[in-house]
């Protein structure tokens, strides 16, 4: 495995973790939006705020990690990627601003009208942002980002059947991940009724998103033939893993095994991302393969060392973060 391949794998791990952890946070925002009126929706919103409050900033850093690693490891691909997709990137960026700021503002506000205002901004941008991020992924996956900046189509690259489909699937996957994640949190907080509510939502979104994901290649077949060929060819085992994990998740949800279902639900979503990667490899952009897109070898090896040493700091810190907040509260 070359240094460039190793960095691509790390980049993909980062992307997967952002999709799972950040995705669950985005999905929580969607459920916040659908929680109903201020009084009726309060328990649900309280649970959401309680669950994502301590972790969302750390989950968000995966996105910055992916972006900076992208330009460091594959600068020749990053430049046309960012230049061509500047419209959805700008819109996603503004959604990220609105979401993060509004979440913190709502927590710091006491008046109901302000909580409502910031809550609406948080929830609305939680739905819009994953759509644009998904559309960006769809643009790359369907080969619509050419390797030369000047050749890029700033509108058609992301406003097309594949991008819109992937964007909608991204919103759905976030909703599903969040519902699954919140089931266990609600039960741990002793709120069985909320847990039942999220279980129902997880089952419905799981079925809808699962069927849509399996059907999506039919929609995009004419639009992105290479992607579909890859998914049904080399990436088929990974795609089947996703289906199996999805079906298992529904079974576990029915059986109310909320901790275990987190694993299978994450696997179902992660496998879609890795299936895409396997279908497209080694092309980063059309005509631009991994070795050609990679940066200078000296940089790649330096960054690999930094990532290796950094992981020694990062992994225990992340484990500490998640264990502190997944444990029962210590008595005061």
């Amino acid at each position, binding site marked *: 495995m070359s240094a460039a391949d190793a960095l691509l794998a790390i980049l993909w791990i980062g992307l997967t973790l952002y999709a799972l952890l950040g995705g669950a946070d985005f999905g929580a925002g969607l459920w916040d939006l659908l929680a109903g009126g201020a009084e009726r929706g309060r328990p649900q919103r309280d649970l959401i705020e309680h669950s994502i409050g301590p972790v969302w*900033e750390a989950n*968000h850093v995966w996105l910055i990690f992916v972006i900076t690693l992208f330009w460091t490891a594959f600068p020749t691909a990053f*430049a046309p990627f960012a230049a061509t997709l500047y419209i959805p*990137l700008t819109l996603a960026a503004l959604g990220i601003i609105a979401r993060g700021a509004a979440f913190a503002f709502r927590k710091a506000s006491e008046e109901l009208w302000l909580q409502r205002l910031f809550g609406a901004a948080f929830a609305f941008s939680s739905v819009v942002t994953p759509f644009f991020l998904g559309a960006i992924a769809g643009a790359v996956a369907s080969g619509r980002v050419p390797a030369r900046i*000047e050749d890029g189509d700033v509108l058609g690259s992301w406003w097309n059947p594949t991008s819109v489909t992937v964007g909608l699937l991204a919103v759905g996957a976030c909703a599903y991940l969040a519902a699954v994640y919140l089931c266990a949190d609600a039960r741990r907080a002793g709120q069985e009724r909320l847990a039942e509510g999220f279980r129902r939502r997880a089952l419905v979104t799981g079925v809808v998103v699962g069927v849509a994901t399996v059907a999506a290649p039919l929609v995009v077949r004419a639009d992105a033939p290479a992607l579909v060929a890859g998914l049904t060819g080399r990436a088929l085992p990974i795609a089947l893993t996703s289906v199996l994990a999805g079906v298992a998740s529904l079974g576990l949800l029915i059986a109310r095994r909320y901790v275990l279902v987190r694993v299978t639900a994450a696997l179902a979503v992660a496998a879609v991302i890795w299936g895409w990667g396997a279908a497209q490899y080694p092309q980063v952009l059309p005509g631009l393969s991994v070795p050609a897109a990679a940066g*200078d070898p000296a940089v790649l090896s*330096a960054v690999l060392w930094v990532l290796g040493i950094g992981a020694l700091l990062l992994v225990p*810190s992340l484990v500490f973060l998640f264990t502190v907040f997944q444990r029962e509260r210590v008595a005061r």
Partner: protein
Amino acid sequence: MSCTAWVAAAATPGDLVAARVQMAFSLGWHIVIACFGVGMPGLAVFAEWRGLSTGDPAWDVLARTWARAMGVLFAVGAVSGTILSFEMGLLWPGLMGPFGDVIGLPFALEGFAFFIEAIFLGIWLYAWDRLPPRIHVLTGVPVLVAGVASAFFVVTANAWMNQPRGFDLVDGDVVGVRPWEAMFNPATPPQTVHMIIAAFMVAGFGMASVYAVGLLRGRRDRHHRLGFLVPFTVAAVLAPVQVVVGDWAAGFLAEYQPLKLAAIEGLSRTTAGASLSLGGIFVDGELRYALEIPNALSLLAHWDPDAVVLGLDQAPPELRPPVNVVHWSFQIMVGIGFALVALGAWLAWSWWRRRDLPGSPWFLRAAVLAGPAAAIALEAGWVVTEVGRQPWVVYGVLLTRDAVNPHPGLVAGLLTVLAVYAVLTVATVAVLRRLARRGPVAPQERTDAR
């Protein structure tokens, strides 16, 4: 791809201006918030530690009050910083394509620093009741260390834009990259130290000015006095240090970026025994109406009153930075810097004589202004660094106009971004004002989720 291919894809002048304004605006916005991210954790952890070691509840109240503001400021800082990483590519693909790997290493390091910061901030803010107090105060320490480290790494990338090193250009292609050499370039030491001290000054004077308002309104309780004195003292002690570091940074310019120094001083011609110019306007290639101090510039830049200082004539007119903007930004930064030193000296004198704040309300009025003034000095200093490098984005290597995204529509993007930032600014100020008005948080009142 070669640099010349990127040059061929240059955008229209209107899009270049829009891209520059958008970058300047979003970076200028983020940089103020980021200063609080660097400066506040140290002060809050100090207060928490004092509360633990003395048992004095006033310290604990202070730490928890600051924690609430930090929750808001960190969220806003994290998301406004994310936008910048997007903008690096969507506005400046001509920089990131050829040089993304050259400046990648500090960003990889910064990623880890930011991770550690976000993780431990989440723990510190929300686990106040979940961890034993002595462990809890320790979880604040990585936030402080990682905040300073983040600032260091990001500024090294900017230092590289001022002193590009660690690569070779062969027929316009970037080859033979030496990432550590790129990161630790001659601009790195003065620029990083200057910025980190600036961050502590902005946070310190900014926090103190909130309490100065309360003190002026007659709230002279222990909470307000501590809340004023601790951040103000830290910032005031750093103010004279910053003057020395600033001189070091100017000495760096004299040696490595003489054109920027010439723009700062409005020095048209290369001169021996150059004088220092205060004020004045640069018209028709000359600085007019300035107060001149003979030989002072040569003395400050080279420690020799008769030394030769290079003027703007060292470069052809199209490669010179806009003099008035750079000259006046520098004057504002230095003027505010010395005013802040004087304000600190006022408090030190009063404390030495009678162990108390100066009795004059003018001191507190000045202290209220010190927070915004420090932020203005920060912005002015940043304008000196960035505009003083123009028209280059990578000094002497890549012109800004050759780095910009060649696609049309950047003006519309700018207008959208400005509108969102206008709303964000209003909301941030409104929320922070409400937090400040709500007053101190009692120790028994929990600061975590519910």
